[in-house]
């Protein structure tokens, strides 16, 4: 009971902190970083549906993220309205997810990963090479942000609130998904696919729907991304983006609701801090990957807790043995 109370209190405090963030942060630069964290968290949460709950690791999610961003960007550039662009982007990402899912779910495990990687590279190739459609390396510029209910989203604060609302909707819907019977069956296909089949569940269909959900939220994140940056280029669709968002998921801890959010915060902050000092973000990204895998495979947050406990124990043991040897010299 008290656990539930603490939980509710933490959620309430976090909610109030998020809702009042622009007032105590003040600086527009930091408000923008908060917006970045929120839409990357939406992206990481979407990937976590597959990686954490369905046990399917996708390295092609930047493709889904990008196709929503590109569709919205290209339609806006073509003079269409914001509503049309957003719905068309969601439709495009759903259609692409259907194709991705049909092809990649021919396999699981490493085969799934390789196929999604290859599919993601196709989309990168289209974004990069089909210059007549996508403007190639020059990317697509989006000149305006939408104004829902007459509220203009040009200022960092207003855009932050719009992102926050979308973020909260996504968090709530994913929390509902995880607790629903369907969420349980997705976890079932991760842990015991054969038993699930024997129980009469259609494992493929469950994975397929999980993929579509994941793709849809990735598309939402992609739309937020393109409205935030007002620009999208093939760089966004590249393998590196897929790897970054996967890093967010695994660094925070998979199959948890808070893990990907914490991971997104860690990666976005680190990227901004590192980029301020050196140009070697790729190198740092790689080193973080290798370090996490080698030293804390369970994720950064649980891993650092474990490592600090271990360090404390080592320290305590050494200290106490030193005290002991001072007090009583052991007999030879």
């Amino acid at each position, binding site marked *: 009971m008290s656990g539930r109370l603490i939980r509710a209190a933490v959620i309430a405090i976090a909610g109030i902190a998020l809702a009042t963030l622009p007032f105590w942060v003040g600086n527009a630069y930091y408000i923008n970083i908060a917006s970045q964290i929120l839409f990357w968290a939406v992206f990481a949460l979407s990937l976590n549906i597959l990686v954490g709950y369905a046990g399917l690791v996708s390295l092609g999610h930047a493709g889904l993220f990008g196709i929503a961003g590109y569709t919205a960007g290209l339609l806006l550039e073509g003079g269409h309205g914001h509503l049309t662009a957003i719905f068309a982007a969601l439709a495009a990402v759903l259609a692409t997810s259907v194709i991705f899912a049909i092809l990649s779910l021919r396999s699981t495990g*490493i085969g799934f990963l390789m196929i999604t990687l290859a599919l993601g590279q196709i989309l990168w190739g289209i974004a990069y090479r089909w210059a007549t459609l996508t403007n190639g390396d020059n990317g697509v510029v989006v000149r305006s942000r939408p104004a829902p209910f007459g509220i203009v989203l040009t200022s960092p604060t207003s855009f932050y609130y719009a992102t926050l609302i979308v973020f909260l909707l996504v968090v709530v819907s994913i929390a509902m998904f995880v607790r629903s019977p369907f969420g349980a069956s997705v976890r079932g296909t991760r842990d015991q696919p054969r038993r699930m089949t024997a129980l009469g569940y259609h494992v493929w269909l469950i994975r397929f729907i999980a993929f579509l959900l994941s793709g849809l939220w990735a598309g939402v994140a992609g739309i937020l991304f393109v409205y935030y940056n007002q620009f999208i280029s093939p760089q966004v669709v590249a393998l590196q983006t897929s790897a970054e968002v996967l890093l967010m998921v695994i660094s925070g801890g998979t199959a948890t609701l808070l893990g990907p959010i914490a991971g997104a915060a860690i990666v976005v902050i680190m990227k901004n801090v590192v980029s301020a000092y050196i140009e070697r973000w790729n190198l740092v990204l790689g080193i973080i990957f290798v370090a996490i895998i080698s030293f804390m495979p369970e994720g950064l947050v649980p891993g650092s807790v474990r490592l600090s406990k271990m360090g404390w124990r080592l320290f305590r043991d050494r200290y106490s043995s030193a005290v002991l040897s001072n007090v009583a010299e052991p007999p030879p």
Partner: protein
Amino acid sequence: MNLWLTLAVNSVALGGLLFLLSAGFSLIFGLMRIPNLMHGSFFMLGAYFGVTFLAKGTNFWVAALASGAAMAIIGGLVERFLLRRLAGQELPQVLLTLGLSFIVSDICLMIWTGDPIQPSTPSSLQGAVQAFGIYFPIYRLVIVAVAVAVAVALWLMIDWTRLGAMIRAGVDDGPIARVIGIKVSQLFTLIFCLGAALAAFAGVMGSPILSVYPGLDIDMLPLALLVVILGGTGSLLGAFVGSFVIGFLYNFGQAMFPDLAYVILFLPMLLVLVLRPQGLFGRVVS
């Protein structure tokens, strides 16, 4: 007419290069079940080593072999000290190799800068031979010859030698192979070194044609993936056939539909996945 022939010759040469690259990938992935996402990095780093040796005036073949040897050592170290600790855990292996590939690409950018480097074709292999009234560039023929030679050598090694039999035993039933005294771990390290060396060798062979530039790794890795998905994992014949299919599709796609070259490249993969998920020559693994 002449354009098509040139394209075909280029396609065969690219196919040869792809085989050198993906044979190692297929062996590592198919036999050891390690999804080695730094295989493209082996190719690029090998190519950079090669052009560095060439810039010092080394003989082309010596440079290619030395680069292969250097990469075998690097690959061996990666396998022995990083991947070995993650034996059987595919996801951590993927992430580790992906992380290493980012590190390698950034280090290459630091050392060799962002400018593409294109060494000239070795002087003894310049020019063309005439046959049936058509000119064939010698260097491209040499690449194909090397690829075929490597394919035959690998096939002989895997299928007809004691070493190959031990490797196959280690793959099929590792614990039992260990019980009867086969040093499976050492064999796997050996395969990994061999795969890395082949990739680096291919990188040097390919450098006069493709040139060496940042991003070469990410360009080559999906091609190796495609070859292996198409041909079937662990199958040398599959890698061989797949390489030439991809070689042709790549060159003809680029020439005929430059905008959609990438999509065309991936179409056969989609077909194979839908109709024959284990790949053209792959075994069904239960």
